[in-house]
C-alpha cells in the first residue's frame, strides 16, 4: 500500500483539549470558607484533656497558622476535576512519545488489588507475625526478579529508579571500602546515551564520573572504554539498550574489561521492556542491576511516585543491599535487618508495597511466556513505528541506518529543521494539538533536534498508525505553513508560554511562596 492510501486510512482527530483557565488552588476560596466544619470540643473532654497545645514545646508551635487555601468541598472537587481534564497521559492518549519511560497500560484490576483493605490498611510498624501475607508477596516478587535477572538477592527498598542507582553506587563504594581501596577507586564509567541518572546518582554518592561518547555504531568503542579504565575505576553503570534503542552487542566484553581492572558492573534495567525473558544481567556478568516497577512491570508512574526501584545483587554483593530484605525460613517470612555490611536504608520502611502488589499481579498474570511476549511485542511495535516514521521526509534515526532497534528509537529532525526552521520542540507542541504527547530527549542533545519514541506492547497497529500520521501531518505543515507549527499549540489547554523563566534561577518559582516573593504583582 502506498503512503497516500495508508494515510487516508488514518483519520486524525478533531481534538481540542479542555481549557478552564483555572486558577491554582492557593488563589481560590475566601477567608473563613471551610471544607469541613469540625465541631467544638465538648466541655467534659476539654476538661479531661486540658490544653493539648501546651504539651508541645514552644519552639515547635507555629506563631501563625499555615497559609492554606480556605475553600469548600465542591470547589475542591471542581478544581481538581478541571485540572484532570487538562492533562495527557497513558490512559487518555496514544502515549508513545515519552520515550525511555516505558509508558504502558497498567491493568485496572491490579489497582483494585492494591486498594484491598488487606493491603491498604496495613501499617508499616505492625509486627511481622500480623503481616505474613504481604511479606509473602514481597518475598515471592524478590524471587521473580531473581529469575528474571539471574541475580542472587534483591531488595525492594529504594523508592525510585534514581534511588536504586544511588543504592547501587553506594554498594560499589561500600564493597571497595571493605576491600581497603575505597579511597583509590573513585571513578564510575557511564555512557552518554545511558540514562542521565547513571551519571548523576554516583556523582551524588561522591564518585568522579567518566562519560563515554558513542562510536560510529552508536555505542562506545572498546578502545574508548580502555582509555577510561584504570586502578581508579570503581565500576561501570550503564543502560543497555541505550536511549537510542541500540543494544551494545559488546557489553559482555565491557564487563570483562571492567572486571579486569578490579571494577564492578551495575546494569541499569529501569527499562527492561525489550529484553524480558531474552537476556539477563547476570548472564552477561553484571554484579548489580535494578528494575523500575513503574516502567517495565506496569506499576503506574503515578505522576512521579512513590515507586520501587528494586536492586539485585550477586551473592558476593548481597550483604551490602539496603535493609530490610524479606527472607523465608520455610515457615515464616521475616524482615531481615541484621545485615552488618548493608548500606542501610535509602528510604523509610521496606519499600512501596502497593507498587509491588501491582507489579506482582502483573507478572503472575502473564507468566514467563507472557513476559517474553511483552518484550517481543514491544520490539515489533517499535520497529513497525520506526519504519513508518522514517518514511516521513525530514526524520532520521542516526547510527547504523537500516538496522533494527530494540524497544525505542532516538530520532533526529535535523533535516526538517534545516529545511523549514521548525525545531523538534515545535513539532512536539504542535502534536499536542492532535491530542498526543511528544518528548524531545535528555540533554545534552548529542543527536541533534531529537525525539525519542517508545511504543510499548500496549499499543495497537491503529494507535501506531495514528501517531505516525500525526507526525507526518506536522512535518507537512512545517513545510506548507511553518508559522502554524512554530506558534503551536492552538488546541490545547494553554498556548505557547515563554519558557525562559523555567531555566532562570532568578525567575523560576517552584513554590507558591517563591512565586509571591518573586512576583509581587500576581500574574493573573
Amino acid at each position, binding site marked *: 500500500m502506498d503512503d497516500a492510501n495508508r494515510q487516508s486510512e488514518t483519520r486524525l482527530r478533531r481534538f481540542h483539549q479542555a481549557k478552564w483557565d483555572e486558577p491554582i488552588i492557593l488563589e481560590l476560596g475566601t477567608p473563613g470558607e471551610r471544607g469541613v466544619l469540625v465541631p467544638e470540643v465538648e466541655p467534659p473532654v476539654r476538661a479531661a484533656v486540658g490544653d493539648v497545645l501546651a504539651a508541645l514545646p514552644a519552639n515547635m508551635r507555629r506563631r501563625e497558622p499555615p497559609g492554606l487555601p480556605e475553600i469548600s468541598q465542591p470547589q475542591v472537587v471542581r478544581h481538581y476535576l478541571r485540572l484532570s481534564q487538562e492533562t495527557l497521559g497513558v490512559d487518555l492518549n496514544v502515549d508513545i512519545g515519552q520515550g525511555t519511560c516505558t509508558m504502558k497500560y497498567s491493568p485496572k484490576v491490579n489497582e483494585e488489588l492494591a486498594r484491598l483493605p488487606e493491603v491498604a490498611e496495613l501499617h508499616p510498624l505492625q509486627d511481622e507475625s500480623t503481616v505474613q501475607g504481604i511479606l509473602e508477596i514481597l518475598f515471592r516478587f524478590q524471587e521473580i526478579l531473581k529469575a528474571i535477572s539471574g541475580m542472587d538477592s534483591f531488595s525492594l527498598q529504594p523508592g525510585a529508579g534514581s534511588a536504586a542507582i544511588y543504592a547501587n553506587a553506594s554498594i560499589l563504594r561500600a564493597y571497595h571500602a571493605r576491600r581497603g581501596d575505597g579511597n583509590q577507586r573513585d571513578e564510575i564509567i557511564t555512557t552518554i546515551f545511558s540514562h542521565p541518572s547513571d551519571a548523576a546518582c554516583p556523582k551524588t554518592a561522591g564518585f568522579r564520573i567518566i562519560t563515554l561518547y558513542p562510536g560510529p555504531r552508536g555505542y562506545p568503542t572498546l578502545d574508548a572504554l580502555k582509555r*577510561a579504565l584504570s586502578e581508579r575505576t570503581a565500576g561501570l553503570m550503564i543502560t543497555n539498550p541505550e536511549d537510542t534503542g541500540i543494544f551494545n552487542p559488546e557489553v559482555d566484553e565491557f564487563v570483562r574489561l571492567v572486571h579486569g581492572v578490579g571494577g564492578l558492573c551495575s546494569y541499569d534495567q529501569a527499562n527492561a521492556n525489550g529484553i524480558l525473558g531474552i537476556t539477563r544481567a547476570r548472564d552477561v556478568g553484571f554484579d548489580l542491576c535494578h528494575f523500575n516497577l513503574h516502567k517495565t512491570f506496569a506499576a503506574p508512574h503515578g505522576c512521579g511516585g512513590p515507586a520501587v526501584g528494586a536492586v539485585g545483587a550477586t551473592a558476593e554483593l548481597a550483604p551490602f543491599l539496603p535493609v530490610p530484605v524479606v527472607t523465608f525460613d520455610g515457615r515464616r517470612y521475616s524482615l531481615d535487618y541484621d545485615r552488618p555490611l548493608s548500606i542501610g536504608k535509602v528510604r523509610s520502611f521496606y519499600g512501596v508495597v502497593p507498587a509491588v502488589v501491582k507489579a506482582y499481579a502483573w507478572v503472575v498474570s502473564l507468566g514467563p511466556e507472557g513476559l517474553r511476549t511483552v518484550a517481543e511485542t514491544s520490539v515489533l511495535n517499535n520497529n513497525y513505528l520506526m519504519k513508518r516514521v522514517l518514511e516521513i521526509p525530514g526524520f532520521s534515526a542516526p547510527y547504523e541506518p537500516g538496522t533494527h532497534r530494540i524497544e525505542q528509537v532516538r530520532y533526529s529532525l535535523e533535516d526538517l529543521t534545516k529545511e523549514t526552521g521548525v525545531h523538534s520542540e515545535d513539532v512536539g507542541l504542535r502534536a499536542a494539538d492532535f491530542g498526543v504527547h511528544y518528548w524531545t530527549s535528555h*540533554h545534552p542533545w548529542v543527536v541533534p533536534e531529537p525525539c525519542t519514541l517508545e511504543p510499548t506492547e500496549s499499543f495497537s497497529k491503529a494507535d501506531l498508525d495514528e501517531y505516525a500520521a500525526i507526525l507526518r501531518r506536522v512535518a507537512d505543515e512545517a513545510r506548507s505553513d511553518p508559522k502554524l507549527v512554530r506558534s503551536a499549540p492552538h488546541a490545547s489547554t494553554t498556548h505557547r508560554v515563554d519558557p525562559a523563566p523555567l531555566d532562570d534561577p532568578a525567575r523560576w518559582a517552584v513554590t507558591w511562596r517563591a512565586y509571591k516573593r518573586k512576583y509581587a504583582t500576581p500574574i493573573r
Partner: protein
Amino acid sequence: MEPLGVHPAGRRTLGLIVNPVAGLGGRVGLKGSDGASVQREALARGAAPLAEQRARQALAPLAGRQEAIDVLTVAGEMGEAVACASGFAPRVVGSIPSGRTTAEDTKTAAREMERLGVDLLLFAGGDGTARDVYDAVGERLVALGIPAGVKMHSAVFAVNPVAAGDAALSYLVGRRRVRTAEVMDVDEQELHRGIVSTRLYGYLRVPEDVRLVQSLKAPTPASEGGVLAAIAADVVDRMVDETLYILGPGTTTRAIATRLGLAKTLLGIDVVSRHGVVIADATESQLLAVVPHRPAKVIVSPIGGQGHLFGRGNQPISPAVLRAVGRASVLVVAAPDKIRSLGGRPFLVDTGDADLDHELSGYVRVVTGYGEEAVYEVSSGGAGEPAAGAAPGAVWTSG
C-alpha cells in the same frame, strides 16, 4: 497577556548591520568574498546579493514587535532597506558609499552602535563580517550572526536566518544570558587553493540561546559561566605546587586562570603555577626554555564547532614543547555543549609533526565539569572529517 515582572519595562534596541557583499562568492564557485577583486569577479560571474534576503528572513520573527523593539541600523543596503521592508521605522547611523561598501563600513557602524547603545547587535554576513564586528566592539556588545556568508567557521552564527531572529527576539524580550563564542579566521588565500587553514581570531558575546545550542523548553539551568567555573574548580583543585601549567587560548582556560586569581591573555599561551603567572603570552622558545626544568602540564580546549586541540591558534605549543612535556601531561578541558557542537566529529590534532599527531590520536579524557570527565576521540588531520562549511575536496594543513 504578558506576565508582569517577567518582561522588564522599557523598550529594547536592536542594532542591525547587513554586509551587502557577504556570500557573493558562494553561488558562483568562489570560496569567499573577502576583498574588492574577489567581489568584482563574483559580480562579473553573475552573483546576486544574498545578505539582504537572509536578513529579511531573520527579521520576520521580530516583525510585529515594533511596540517593544527599536531598530538602529545603517543606511541603504546595510540595513535600512531591510528594516523598512520588515515594518520597522529604523533610526539610521552614518552614511555609506552605496554599492562599494567595505569592511571599514561594518566596523564604523558597529562602533557607532556601541556608542549609541544597543541591546543586541544582529549582523548578516560571514566570518569576515564577524571579524569586523569583533575588531570594532570586542566583547563589549552582545552580538549574533545571521548566516549569510560563504565561510562560517565561527560559532557566532545561528543555524539559519529564522533561528537568528528567534534568538534575537528571545534575548531582547526574555532571558538575557550570554555566552562567548569563537570568531574564526580562515585564510582565504589558502582556501582558494583548496586548503582549509583556520585560526582562532577572537570571541564575541552571543545570546546563550536554545536555538543555537539546545532545547527551548528544558535547557540546563547551568549557564556557560557556571559550567566553565566548575571545570576550572576541578582543574585547580587537582593542581600541585611545583608544576607549571601551560594554558592554551580561550575562555575555558581563561576560567582556570580566573579561578587562580590570575589574568589570562585570551588568545595567547600563558604559563602559570598555583601561585602566579610565570610567562604571559609565551612564545615557543620561552616554553622550551622552561619545560625541561620543571614538571609541566599543557591545558587546552578544542575550538568550538571545529575541534582542533593543537595546530590552530596555539602554535607556540609546538611539537617540541609537546614532546618535552609528554602526552600524559596534556589535559583537555571542554564544556559538554562544546563537545556536542562537533556533531560527533572527533577532536583534531595538526601539530605539523605527523608522527606526533599519530601519537596524540586515539581517545582522550576531557574534563567537562567538577568531578566529571568524558572520553572522546582524537584524530590526526588526514583522518578527520572537514568541519562543516569546508570547501569540498579541501585538505587540512597546518595553519
